[in-house]
């Protein structure tokens, strides 16, 4: 995964496998990535909802944050995010956002605290491919002298998602079966040392598997050898996450949107709100108390025509109230869906709105998200 200064695209440890599987490869965040395989986006989408899909997400940034002990490393990261990182137990992961000084979202990311005394003081980060450089520069600049950022360049990341993911995974990594949603663990997959998290970007149960680059292809082939598993491209990854109501950075979130506007206030925990010591705290706490000037909502369309990112959202009386940030066809629903930002006065579920597509107004309604119920693995309470 060497950097190509001449502007050519980067590959992942699975690029040759994608080609062999007949993928259509497209440029994405500087990488040559599979947008779809011969089955096509709708078939890949449905396969993931019904069985298990394998996704190459090696373009995403994996990094260690390393300090002398958990409290120190957590405090260092907390200076840049609004979440309670200190409270994270070994073996647990949390979704959070990097903030700029105005409370805008620089990136959304996963932060995991690995298990084991030897890992005390380490946090494992997974950031968006398109934001790696920006994130790493921001994080490194904000760290105290005794905490360092160590980007990981020699590991691939493979997601296995879908209702059959757990059964498939159990045959290779039995320890994965017992993991709870948002749990993380080191384990062996057919003898390969991997970091596994029980999470994903589809709304389904599943895993993200961090694997040494040299072992990525054998691991992917072992999973694909299971007839329940099919390779899934970025096209279906996008339609799956949209149905699940999950944000895509650079579209549904950017440096101007706050977590309150983005309707992801679950990244804010009470202690951090009380301390009010994260970047942009004044704006974010004020938006929490008084309401933001715009808020992200889901939208369902009455007809069959999809509306895309950038379409204007109008109120029932025709005035401009916002803009779409994602929009497309939901294969599970067989209908178009979208998300966008609107004036909070029009954000109530059921509110009729119009979406302007090619000069025409399409009827739509504000809808609850997720559009398709999430089926994450919740452990029964003991």
């Amino acid at each position, binding site marked *: 995964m060497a950097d190509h200064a001449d502007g050519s695209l980067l590959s992942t440890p699975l690029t040759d496998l994608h080609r062999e599987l007949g993928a259509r490869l497209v440029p994405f965040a500087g990488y040559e990535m599979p947008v*779809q395989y011969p089955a096509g*986006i*709708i078939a890949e*989408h449905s396969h993931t909802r019904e069985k298990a899909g394998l996704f190459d997400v090696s373009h995403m940034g994996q990094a260690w944050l390393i300090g002398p002990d958990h409290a120190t490393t957590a405090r260092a990261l907390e200076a840049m995010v609004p979440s309670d990182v200190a409270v994270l137990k070994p073996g647990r992961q949390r979704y959070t956002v990097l903030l700029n000084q105005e409370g805008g979202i620089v990136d959304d990311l996963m932060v995991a605290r690995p298990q084991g005394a030897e890992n005390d003081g380490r946090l494992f980060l997974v950031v968006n491919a398109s934001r790696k450089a920006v994130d790493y520069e921001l994080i490194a600049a904000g760290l105290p002298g005794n905490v360092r950022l160590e980007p990981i360049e020699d590991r691939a990341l493979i997601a296995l998602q879908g209702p059959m993911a757990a059964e498939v995974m159990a045959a290779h990594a039995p320890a994965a079966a017992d993991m709870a949603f948002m749990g993380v663990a080191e384990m062996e997959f057919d003898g390969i040392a991997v970091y596994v998290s029980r999470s994903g970007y589809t709304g389904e149960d599943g895993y993200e598997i961090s694997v040494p680059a040299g072992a990525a292809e054998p691991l992917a082939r072992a999973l694909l050898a299971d007839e329940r598993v099919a390779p899934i491209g970025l096209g279906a990854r996008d339609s799956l996450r949209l149905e699940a109501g999950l944000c895509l950075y650079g579209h549904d979130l950017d440096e101007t949107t706050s977590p309150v506007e983005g309707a992801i206030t679950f990244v804010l925990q009470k202690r951090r709100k009380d301390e009010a010591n994260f970047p942009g705290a004044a704006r974010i706490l004020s938006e929490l108390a008084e309401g933001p000037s715009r808020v992200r909502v889901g939208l369902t369309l009455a007809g*069959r*025509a*999809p509306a*895309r990112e950038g379409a204007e959202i109008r109120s029932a009386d025709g005035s401009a109230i916002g803009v779409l940030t994602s929009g497309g*066809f939901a294969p599970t629903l067989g209908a178009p869906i979208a998300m966008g930002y609107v004036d909070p006065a029009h954000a109530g579920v059921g509110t009729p709105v119009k979406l302007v597509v090619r000069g025409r107004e399409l009827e739509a309604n504000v809808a609850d998200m997720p559009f398709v119920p999430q089926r994450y693995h919740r452990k029964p309470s003991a």
Partner: protein
Amino acid sequence: MSTRYTEDHEWITVAGDVATVGITTYAQEQLGDVVFVELPEVGRTVSKGDEAAVVESVKAASEVYAPLDGEVVEANSVLADEPGKVNEDPEGAAWFVKIRMSDASQLDDLMDAAAYKAYIETL
């Protein structure tokens, strides 16, 4: 006369002064799963190069341009309910529009099957 093709991956067959227009197999493969087709109203006058239809795949919207001048005399209503037909039978049942040509000499500018095949091999 035989089927003609455009560089925008439309096919055209002619019966009398009416041209039937659709998109090619190559085009539907590039688009992927088609989920919606917006067709022009019958009676609309189009000029060569005008946006005559829109094909929406899961990922994106693509314009279909009028290959000839003329008047739209029929739009394929089957596509409203079964847009997936564009993937299944692009050069048959999933035709888009029929246009009554106002200048049949424009057909001379279009490619024949051999020329179109050679063209897509350069892409």
